[in-house]
């Protein structure tokens, strides 16, 4: 048993932690005009903090980071507002429907990321379906594609399943007798929800928030394909440094900064969650 555990820890280390360390290592190396575009440093140890100095000194990066957090935050909020009722409805559905409904929720995940974006472009573009309907109603067409609206739609649509699933998992485990007890003691349905269902599903909500917020904060493809040019998110800058500028150390430094931020965030959220809970119960 102990041997198995040791093997698995080693496995986790090699497969999961090592790549992260490599990114950190690239962030600390000199850029170079070679392939790959950074000076290898395994034999010697020439550490450069230039990349970190750059992203700390140039306000562009900080602005992009803040914008990313804002976009991720708003997307997470929309996912939560849309996903919670879906999770609740699935959990309350007859047993035999639930798997079908869960599969439907997972459907976007199966149709291929690119095709989904493709479909949304078809819907949102200037002479797309939505505008065609608007024009048929006698109104003037809207600019939708390459705006923030399109970007949010894309992000919410992509990450919604990650919000629905953990909340559903929690709600489906909720003891139905607690709901009956609340109703029995005089709570109308909306109070049963507020006093029992919601507080007991909070762990699922926090899980969903993390699962949506974290990848959304690093998102680069959706802003690139659906968003406007003004949406300079941190993930997009990373992409540009990586592919367009070929500056791997800077790209890696951005990735490290983002990862550090995202590792701190769950701890902060957890503390907020605990405080909320203990305030409730006192």
């Amino acid at each position, binding site marked *: 048993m102990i041997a198995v555990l040791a093997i698995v820890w080693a496995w986790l280390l090699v497969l999961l932690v090592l790549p992260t360390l490599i990114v950190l290592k690239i962030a600390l190396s000199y850029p170079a005009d070679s392939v790959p575009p950074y000076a290898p440093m395994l034999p010697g140890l020439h550490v450069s903090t230039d990349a970190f100095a750059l992203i700390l000194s140039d306000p562009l990066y900080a602005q992009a980071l803040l914008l990313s957090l804002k976009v991720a935050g708003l997307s997470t909020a929309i996912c939560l507002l849309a996903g919670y009722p879906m999770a609740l409805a699935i959990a309350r559905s007859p047993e035999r429907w639930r798997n079908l409904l869960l599969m439907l929720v997972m459907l976007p995940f199966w149709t291929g990321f690119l095709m989904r974006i493709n479909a949304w472009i078809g819907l949102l573009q200037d002479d797309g379906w939505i505008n065609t309907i608007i024009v048929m109603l006698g109104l003037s067409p809207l600019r939708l594609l390459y705006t923030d609206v399109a970007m949010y739609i894309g992000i919410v649509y992509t990450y919604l399943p990650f919000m629905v699933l953990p909340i559903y998992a929690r709600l489906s485990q909720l*003891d139905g*007798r*607690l709901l009956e007890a609340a109703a029995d*003691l*005089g709570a109308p349905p909306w109070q049963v929800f507020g006093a029992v269902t919601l507080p*007991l599903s909070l762990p699922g909500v926090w899980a969903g928030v993390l699962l949506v917020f974290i990848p959304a904060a690093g998102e680069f493809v959706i802003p690139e394909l659906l968003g406007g040019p003004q949406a300079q998110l941190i993930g997009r800058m990373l992409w540009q440094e990586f592919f367009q500028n070929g500056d791997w150390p800077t790209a890696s430094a951005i990735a490290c900064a983002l990862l550090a931020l995202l590792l701190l965030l769950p701890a902060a959220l957890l503390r907020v969650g605990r405080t909320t809970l203990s305030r409730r*119960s*006192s």
Partner: protein
Amino acid sequence: MLKVSGLRVRFGVTMAIDGLDLAVAPGELFVLLGASGSGKSTLLRAIGGFVHPDAGRIELDGVGLAGMPPHRRPVNTMFQSYALFPHMSVAANIGFGLRMRGLAKSAIAARVTEMLELVRLRGFGTRMPAQLSGGQQQRVALARSLAPRPALLLLDEPLSALDRNLRRDTREELVRLQRDLGIAFILVTHDQEEALTMADRIGVMHRGRLMQVGTPAEVYERPNTRFVAEFLGAANVLSITLRDGRIGLSSGMTLHIATPVPADATWLAIRPERVIIGESDAPNRLSGVVVQRSYAGETLTHVVRLADGSMLRATAALRQGLNAVQVEIGDAVTLSWQPDACIVLAQ
């Protein structure tokens, strides 16, 4: 005050409650006794509003409850395994029903303190349910359901999660509380001893029907069916034949009974504690051989094989201790019982 008439509840193809009538008086402690699946919990849930009847009426103080959602009914339930809110303190649990009624904070606090005193949990208000023992949780659940002063309290197996010794003590406490408060209780249980010791009246449920309703002594001493006789305590059941208006056993013996013989008499039931081994003046007598004995501390039960091969159990209280008992396995003994120990049953 509570009146149930012609109630029917169907789950799919099974009739959970099959045409049931019941009246519970104010201040009464009514016990619904039945095995699992007999429909007793369904009846409780129908009164609480969690199950919708297919037919029949439920009236409380003359007001029909049909179509009234659970949160409007002036009835509270103490749920099996308690259903305490795990994220709320003991005080918040007890005060929940009062908050839902929109009482002032000070009134709620006063009532919560009062209820904590009532169930002897003073000072436990800030604990969380998970920090309590089983017996303490049971008392919090009771306090929570009593706090809103219900007209009728429904209790679903309130003692089943407790240890045996604690259960015995809690039983008496619950009865005392009910007497003091004067609130009508309907208590569901599958435990006959619980039903007999606690109830004002017992309703024995079986397959969605009330087989018999009566005081504990009525249902125990004068059960109306073989099912009730065997469900409430142990019973020796022998088949009988009618000859010239008198009852005979298969061994040929003619019975002396204390009541008129019903025309459709089929079974004779005798409680084991009414059967006497050895000397007695009782007119009903049989002989047999002791084949087994079972010691239970308070009592000793002998299993006696009769001449025709059937078994009869005789239970005697051990008033003098086990050493005073003279009967051994293998002994030939005479069994006897009084006419009023005979329970003659049609079905």
